[in-house]
């Protein structure tokens, strides 16, 4: 479980906190959704959960261990490797698609052949095997997004953090992704956190959700309930 306990965050140069006292869990095999308008701090919160950003107040623990206290030790890296964050805008490296998918594997010391094999498998899983030898210039925005998700899945993380994963996906890809995520949570026990505006996509999941506004969690409930409360809020205000 990833547990963010009453976390606060502000940038060094600024006086204002962008995350104000939020507590959030991502359970193994569970799904946690972040809702809210742009600028409410969803990406920042996801980055805190992914151990990219250190909270100014409060703590983040993964399976009971506090990453930021472990600092530079070997245990810290192992802990970090349990979580993967996927950017809203895909960052692809130079090379073929399979090489992109293999980045995380190569960083962990897998051989080129092993990494290639696993990359192919992951692409297959997401239904985009045919892209494997294409280069980043040749991909559409949706294809690039699927590739970056495949890259995260290839290293078989324990926790998957997705930032607006469906913003460029067509219907077919969204369906595939939805199925894959639900399978992974049920069968592999992977914990997933998603920030999204895509309500139809979200409503297919069961789990927890919070609605954020100005760095605070104004609604905190299960997904279905949070969605209806949030839409009521939007239509009334």
């Amino acid at each position, binding site marked *: 479980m990833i547990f963010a306990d009453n976390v606060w965050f502000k940038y060094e140069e600024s006086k204002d906190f962008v995350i104000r006292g939020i507590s959030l869990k991502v359970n193994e095999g569970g799904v946690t959704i972040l809702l809210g308008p742009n600028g409410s701090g969803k990406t920042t919160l996801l980055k805190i959960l992914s151990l*990219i950003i250190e909270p100014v107040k409060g703590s983040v623990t993964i399976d009971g261990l506090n990453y930021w206290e472990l600092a530079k030790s070997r245990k810290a890296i192992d802990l970090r*490797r349990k979580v993967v964050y996927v950017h809203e805008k895909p960052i692809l*490296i*130079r090379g073929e698609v399979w090489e992109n998918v293999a*980045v995380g594997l190569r*960083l962990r010391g897998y051989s080129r052949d092993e990494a290639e094999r696993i990359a192919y498998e992951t692409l297959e899983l997401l239904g985009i095997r045919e892209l494997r030898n294409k280069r980043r210039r040749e991909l559409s925005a949706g294809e690039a997004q699927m590739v970056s998700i495949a890259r995260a899945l290839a290293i078989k993380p324990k926790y998957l953090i997705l930032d607006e994963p469906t913003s460029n996906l067509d219907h077919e890809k969204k369906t595939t992704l939805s199925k894959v995520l639900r399978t992974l949570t049920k069968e592999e026990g992977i914990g997933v956190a998603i920030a999204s505006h895509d309500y139809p996509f979200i409503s297919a999941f069961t789990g927890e959700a919070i609605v954020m506004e100005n760095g605070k969690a104004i609604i905190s409930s299960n997904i279905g309930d949070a969605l209806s409360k949030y839409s009521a809020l939007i239509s009334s205000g």
Partner: protein
Amino acid sequence: MVFMWGEVLEITSRSVMISLSATLLAASWSILASYALTRSKTASKYVMPVLQSLVGIPTVLIGLLLYTILSRSGPLGFLSLLYTPNAIILGESILITPLLITYIYGSLKASLDTYGELAYVLGGDKLGIASLVIRESTPQLFSSIIIAFSRAMGELGIALMVGGNIKGLTRVMTTAIALEVSKGEFELAIALGAILVLITISVAVIVNLIKKWWER
């Protein structure tokens, strides 16, 4: 005195080999230095401004300082580097280092934000992150190499002071041009200058092509 084309060829290839070597050498340590600087807030706050101002340092000053060091009466005189192309290579690589670091530092900083974060989230350790960031900054590296090479090719002060403009040994394009100017052979000097510029442009074009190929 007749200027022979064989001699022009010799001087040209010497210039290219010297400046190319200096550029490659300076690039190798500049990449590492630049990366180290991106990781250290205090170093970059104080070091970068100093380096930026050193980009334009007069070549004759570097040449003079290096001469006093390499002179037989100087601390490194025993190396017998004076009046050799290697002395010029040394001087030019020092000359272009601030330029390279300034440029590469800028591109690494940008790459660090994207590829650095990517490598981090995918579980890279320090070395892994550094490798990915540097690898993905290769296009900018190529660009910086073009600029540095051009600067090295066009410098005069270092080649003059530590090279000695010795015919057949350390005469390079810039010192040859200076010599022709002092002889009053302005037209010849301009012709040599045109060749120098042409060569530098050619190298720039080639490296750009390589860069395009890499980025594909």
